[in-house]
């Protein structure tokens, strides 16, 4: 008989409720309702929003009162503000994706109820990833997330591209999982544990010891784990699947991959770096790997995006580029360890801590902001796609500002934000990321980063050019007015992108709580 402690119940609160929602949905799907997929979608949406609300309420009452985070399930599962913060991102992304799916699939014969249930299961996997404190949980989370997404990518059964996306994602995803697992095995072999805290304790001995083979085994394994996660993040050189999968998958699923899946992978990576591989920061190899990956990811993503005519493909490369900016933050995190050596004693630790803190906070802020602006952009693509042929190409967007000024305005806000122009959230996020890079003396990286955002402005602006400065090329198909949930969600995303850019303080306060004293202790001891 397995018995859970109270803290474990609290910890798995969000994924547990999501699981119950899936079960409820299964029962509903079998009952004989008219227009079943649609009802199921609405049910899912209500459920996710309720969970989001419940989490917010319980968080406020519980976690603020008891500062002690909960470690449960034999140290596998770490439920703290970090996990909670990412749960917010996942739940928001899931809710908006459900709304978008309802619009995207409305009236189509490939609208299936499974779509929503798979989406929920993937969200469960994400929650597990953000809370994982050992390799087993991390891997479970990744697979629970990925397998439903493989299926979701092939959701448009009669669309060849969708099928291709599904197969491609599955094959390359399996490949990445293998790399990840192999890395985990090597780390386990070297350290004797799969638990982050144990690894962290074992690493200094390995690094300081005389056994070079053991050290190399560990290092190689650690880099392979990072590489496996980089695949999900879509960092160069592990990005090859991204454009085809993003273009082929149904647009709501693409949106979900670009926001939820990416955030989950970064959550896993960040947690691993902070809680497990901390001693590796000062070693150099990891830092160099992140550094090179950041530069390649930003540059390749932005330059290739310029050549794209398909908006989903362009946003795929743009999402690669944004992974690069986030990697700049992770590089800064690793680079903060130099201060422990540069300055003596506590001063060095304090300097390292404050810089590491601002780098991690910047990553969190970026991910949240990026989620909103990307969901907004994909939402517009879906709505335009409903009304026109070629709705996901630049041609389809031509002259949109005259026909649908509000929709064009939402897209414009998201594009400016993605390009990092104030006063939108993309600017505040980039500012924070580059601030952390500069405070860790990563000047070259920061310069490459900002120049990249100039390059990115070119292709984001081109969307505005076709919307505002060209005449309509593809006629509107349907004349139905755009009062749907997805339109409302779009307006909301645009509003958040503006508000979070102009008033970032509430979000910054929330992130401050994520990395509290408790994280300081973890890093320093």
């Amino acid at each position, binding site marked *: 008989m397995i018995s859970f402690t109270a803290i474990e119940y609290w910890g798995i609160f969000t994924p547990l409720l999501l699981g119950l929602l899936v079960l409820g949905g299964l029962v509903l799907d079998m009952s004989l309702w008219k227009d079943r997929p649609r009802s199921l979608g609405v049910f899912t949406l209500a459920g996710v929003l309720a969970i989001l609300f419940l989490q917010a309420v319980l968080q406020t009452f519980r976690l603020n009162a008891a500062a002690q985070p909960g470690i449960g399930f034999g140290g596998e599962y770490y439920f703290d503000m970090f996990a909670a913060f990412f749960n917010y991102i996942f739940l928001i992304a899931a809710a908006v994706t459900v709304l978008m799916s309802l619009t995207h699939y409305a009236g189509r014969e490939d609208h299936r109820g499974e779509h929503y249930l798979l989406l929920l299961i993937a969200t469960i996997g994400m929650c597990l990833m953000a809370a994982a404190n050992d390799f087993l949980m991390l891997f479970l989370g990744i697979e629970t997330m990925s397998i439903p997404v493989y299926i979701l990518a092939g959701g448009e059964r009669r669309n060849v591209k969708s099928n291709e996306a599904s197969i491609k994602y599955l094959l390359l995803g399996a490949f990445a999982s293998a790399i990840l697992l192999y890395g985990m095995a090597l780390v386990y072999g070297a350290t004797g544990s799969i638990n982050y805290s144990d690894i962290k304790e074992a690493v200094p001995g390995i690094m300081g010891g005389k056994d070079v083979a053991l050290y190399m085994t560990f290092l190689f394994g650690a880099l392979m784990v990072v590489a496996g996660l980089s695949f999900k993040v879509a960092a160069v050189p592990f990005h090859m699947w991204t454009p085809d999968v993003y273009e082929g998958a149904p647009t709501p699923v693409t949106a979900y991959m670009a926001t939820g899946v990416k955030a989950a992978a970064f959550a896993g990576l960040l947690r691993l770096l902070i809680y497990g591989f901390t001693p590796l920061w000062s070693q150099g190899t990891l830092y160099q790997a992140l550094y090179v990956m950041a530069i390649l990811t930003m540059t390749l993503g932005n330059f290739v995006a310029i050549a794209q005519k398909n908006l989903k493909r362009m946003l795929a490369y743009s999402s690669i580029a944004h992974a690069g900016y986030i990697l700049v933050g992770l590089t800064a995190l690793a680079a903060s360890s130099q201060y422990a050596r540069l300055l003596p004693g506590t001063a060095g630790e304090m300097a390292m801590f*404050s810089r590491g803190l*601002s780098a991690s*906070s*910047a990553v969190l802020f970026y991910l949240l902001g990026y989620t909103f602006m990307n969901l907004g952009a994909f939402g517009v693509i879906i709505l335009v796609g409903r009304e026109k042929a070629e709705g996901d190409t630049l041609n389809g967007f031509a002259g949109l500002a*005259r026909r649908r*000024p509000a929709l064009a305005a939402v897209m414009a806000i998201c594009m*400016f934000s993605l390009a990092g*122009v*104030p*006063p939108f959230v993309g*600017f*505040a996020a980039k*500012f*924070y990321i*580059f*601030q*952390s890079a*500069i*405070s860790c003396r990563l*000047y070259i990286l*920061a*310069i490459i980063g*900002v*120049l990249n*955002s*100039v390059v990115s*402005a*070119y292709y984001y*602006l*081109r969307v*505005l*050019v076709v919307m*505002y*400065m060209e005449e309509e090329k593809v006629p509107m198909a349907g004349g139905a007015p755009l009062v749907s949930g997805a339109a409302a969600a779009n307006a909301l995303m645009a509003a958040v992108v503006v508000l979070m850019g102009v*008033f*970032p*303080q509430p979000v*910054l306060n929330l992130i401050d709580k994520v990395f509290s004293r408790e994280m300081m202790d973890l890093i320093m001891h």
Partner: protein
Amino acid sequence: MVELILTYILFLPLLGAVLVWIAPGEKAARVISLITMLAGLALGLVLWLGFDPASADMQFAEVRLEWFTLAGAPIVYQLGVDGISLLLVELTVLLGPVVILSSWSAVTDRVKEYHIFMLILQTGMLGALMALDLFLFYIFWELMLIPMYFLIGAWGGPRRVYAAIKFFLFTMAGSVLMLLAIIFLAYQPVVGSGGATGIEGFDIVALTANLTSTPLKGNIQLLLFAAFALAFAIKVPMFPFHTWLPDAHVEAPTAGSVILAGVLLKMGTYGFIRFAMPLFPYAAVKAVPVISVLALIGIIYGALVSMVQEDVKKLVAYSSVSHLGFVMLGMFALTSTGVQGSLLQMVNHGLSTGALFLLVGIIYERRHTRLISEFGGLSKVMPLFAVFFMIVTLSSVGLPGLNGFVGEFLILAGTFTAKHAHSKYYAVVAATGVIFAACYMLWMFQRVMFGPITKAQNRELKDLNGREVLYLGIILVFIVWIGVYPSTFLSRSQATVDRFIEQVEKGRALTQSSIDSQKTHAEAGGPAGRTER
């Protein structure tokens, strides 16, 4: 009320934009915009009257709102004007109603959006001029790009898309490096009183004071100055970063060109005098030869290129490169006369070139061409237009009694008496630019206005109407006022300029002495001053 006046001036256009958005029709949109701009002008008058010319400090800067804190640095909403920004703020609010009036009949497509962008642009420009926080400044600095991008791209000429993107990318490429420099600067550690350590922060007044009394190390100053200067030089634009300007000017709608020439370009020169020079005084003095030579090239090159233009608007655009060269030269003379002249010339250029663009716009609206060869003998059919055009042309050429002369004279005199090497040669070369200006402007005027009427269409052209006389008249009043009695304006900025020069000199001397002492103690290895940087 008076404490909040800058906030009112700043957000009034934004409020106007919201009202235009919900306004029922096109006519209402125009009227609301005009009323908003006029109200802004009225507030500007209150500001002018309330300004104390004797003080060199930031005025009306009582409001301080903590906006948010990023990585330990508070970002504060704080506005203020001193002698330097006052003139430019007044210029901005003056041009506001003028541009709305000028687009009354010229803009007929998507009128609402047009006015919304105009009003947002006004807020952006005023914010950049009045911000006392570097972060806030940067926000407004970039915010100006968005409406201008749309104004050029959606209401511009045939090559508008190319011009709009070029404008956006050039400006952004310059400013991102400045952003990094701002971050680097703001998060510099600083040892306060009692050994407490902090960071420099974003407060412009405090930063300027700090960096004057304890300047950064010389080579760091040079790097940061380069990053700031690049952003501002692109905006001015200085040779060789000027290539976006002719495109943007020619393709932009008339009102866009007026704002671009009148205020947006001044953001570059303002940036130099507000940030790049006082924050990095040593580097600023080191950069005098480079900037001066580039300014001279700009003066001569701009004038020569203007001379061969076939399109009146393009001619005026290139003349901007030449005029802004004067502004830069005077500013880097680092004498009271030179800087004062350069400040006045910023306003002059805004008025004269703005008026020229308006006049070109008027003729374009009637004839739908701007080619010089298409005109000739216009003075016979449009006598009133010819009078206005002539006065503005002469003001741009620098005829004594009109505004251009005062500015150019002060700049040349200031450069001639400057302390740095070769300053006399700079002044001599620049003076030839004045002659060139007379050549291209008067030649253009002659070809357009005098001689026989060669094209039949030109016989039917209507002369100026009341609205056009009104907004040109407003500008004309100031063109003559500055030309006859510039003290009204110069006295407002004198105290601030004097202190500016004092600050730069003091900062430069301190940096130089710390560099010298470091050289002498090089072997001793004693870290002098702020080696932590």
